[in-house]
């Protein structure tokens, strides 16, 4: 774990926008997972992101757990074979840390994207014109 980069967690990481491997917006850095090595140094190991995590960080623990559980039930998440859990993104999968954080994951594998998909399946899909692009000249950044 030598040669880690020094970042100011609150200023450089927390609450930043996340983007997936296809540059889709897929949640914010809701919390961070830190681990202490035997020498007492603290390392950043993962980005946490998804329903309930922000509430948990803000001290609303019961609300946070409830949101997480509700999201799990609503989406009946299948077993997945990704190297990460759906709300925990190992820091190795952060490709670039800047004004936004680029991830080497697919938004569809993240819990933060579950509601987006649910909304599509249950609402947006039934409204005509949902596939039309609103603008022709812009690529998502």
């Amino acid at each position, binding site marked *: 774990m030598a040669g880690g980069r020094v970042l100011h967690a*609150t200023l450089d990481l*927390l*609450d*930043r*926008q*996340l983007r997936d491997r296809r540059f*889709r*917006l*897929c*949640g*914010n850095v809701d919390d961070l997972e830190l681990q202490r090595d035997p020498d007492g140094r603290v390392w950043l190991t993962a980005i946490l*992101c998804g329903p309930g995590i*922000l509430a948990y*960080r*803000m001290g609303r623990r019961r609300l946070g757990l409830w949101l997480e559980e509700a999201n799990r039930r609503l989406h009946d998440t299948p077993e997945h074979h990704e190297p990460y859990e759906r709300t925990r993104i190992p820091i190795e999968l952060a490709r670039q840390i*800047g*004004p*936004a954080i680029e991830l080497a994951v697919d938004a569809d594998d993240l819990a*933060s994207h579950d*509601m*987006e*998909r649910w*909304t*599509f399946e249950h*609402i*947006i*899909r039934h*409204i005509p*014109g*949902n*596939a*039309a*692009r*609103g*603008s*022709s*000249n*812009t*690529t*998502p*950044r």
Partner: protein
Amino acid sequence: MKKILGVALGVLTAIGGFVDMGDLVANADTGARFDMNLAWVVVVGVVGICVYAEMSGRVAALCGRPVFDLVRERLGPRFGLANLLASFFINFLTLTAEIAGVALSISLVASVDYILLIPLVAILVWLVCWRMPFETMERIFGLLGLCLLVFAVTVWKIGPDWNELLGDVAHPHVPHTESVYSYAYFAIALFGAAMTPYEVFFFSSGAVEDGWTEKDLTENRINVLVGFPLGALLSLAIMACAHLVLAPRNIEVDQLSQVMLPVASVVGRLGLALVIIGVFAATFGAALETALSAGYVVAQYLGWPWGKYHSPRHATRFHVVVALAIAGALLFGLTGVDPVKVTEYSIVLSAGALPLTYFPILVIANDARYVGQEHTNGRWLNVLASIYLVILLAVSAATIPLMIITKGGS
């Protein structure tokens, strides 16, 4: 032609901020009650919004991060959430007023009670949010809103004593018919209208929607320097019309139709037609601005995909929030609530939340990791922006007490 259309975002943003439903009436009311003694506030306000809108557009162009992203990043989730709730509520009130305003402007031509037109207007607003490309939208409503320039033509045709008119602007005093408190209250309302937060939400998100990059920094500056002063000019022209035509006849303004009176009496039929089209476009534009901003702020706070540059199926929650905001505004509007009062309160309330929106913009515009070393604020810009931050803090502290003392400016 392309150059002219390029400023559509700035023009639409400014029209939605300066001359939307509530401001149309508030400007005319101010002109009728205080003559031009409050015009200086509009000038102070337009400099402030130019300073901050330029920064927000620059940040959005350079790193693709719109204002409400920055709000959560720099204020943290707690203050960010407070700002989100306040901004969303203010947005919602304004949206209600704008939908009613569009209905009122149609009812002037269609002679149908405006309440009956509210559902139709709400559906139209939603359809534009759902289907119309962002660029088309900003061009149509930005350019049609320019019909309001007929107010400036009216002032010019009246041919007032310019020395006297400008004298009031340069040497303002409180008219003896009004108290100091109501003078201050109206000053805050005008300042709040110039610097309403949804202008920077919309402008910076629009910069991302239009795909601005480093190449577009000049375009950003032109949009700001053309759009907002134009909005201010319209606002002042409406004020001057009321001062010149309505004040001598002791007409107090509390309805949209009274705002148009000076134009109709001086320029005649063509003027009236233009002003009705202008009011329709301005209120419709403001309705779009606030409806989309409702979606922008929620989606950006929570990190969802947002924007009209995606198809709705790729920004699903964003479109649901926009639709819910419009539906809520429709129901609230159907209760027959007075749209003028609603915007006046929402503007004054928004003055209370201003620092929470503008402070993060100033911080990020100085952060080289976001905008690059060569694009951070210069020293004089920082001095100016800091002065405005102090003004914003003072205004936000004075808002609620003044609202209580003056009983809402009556």
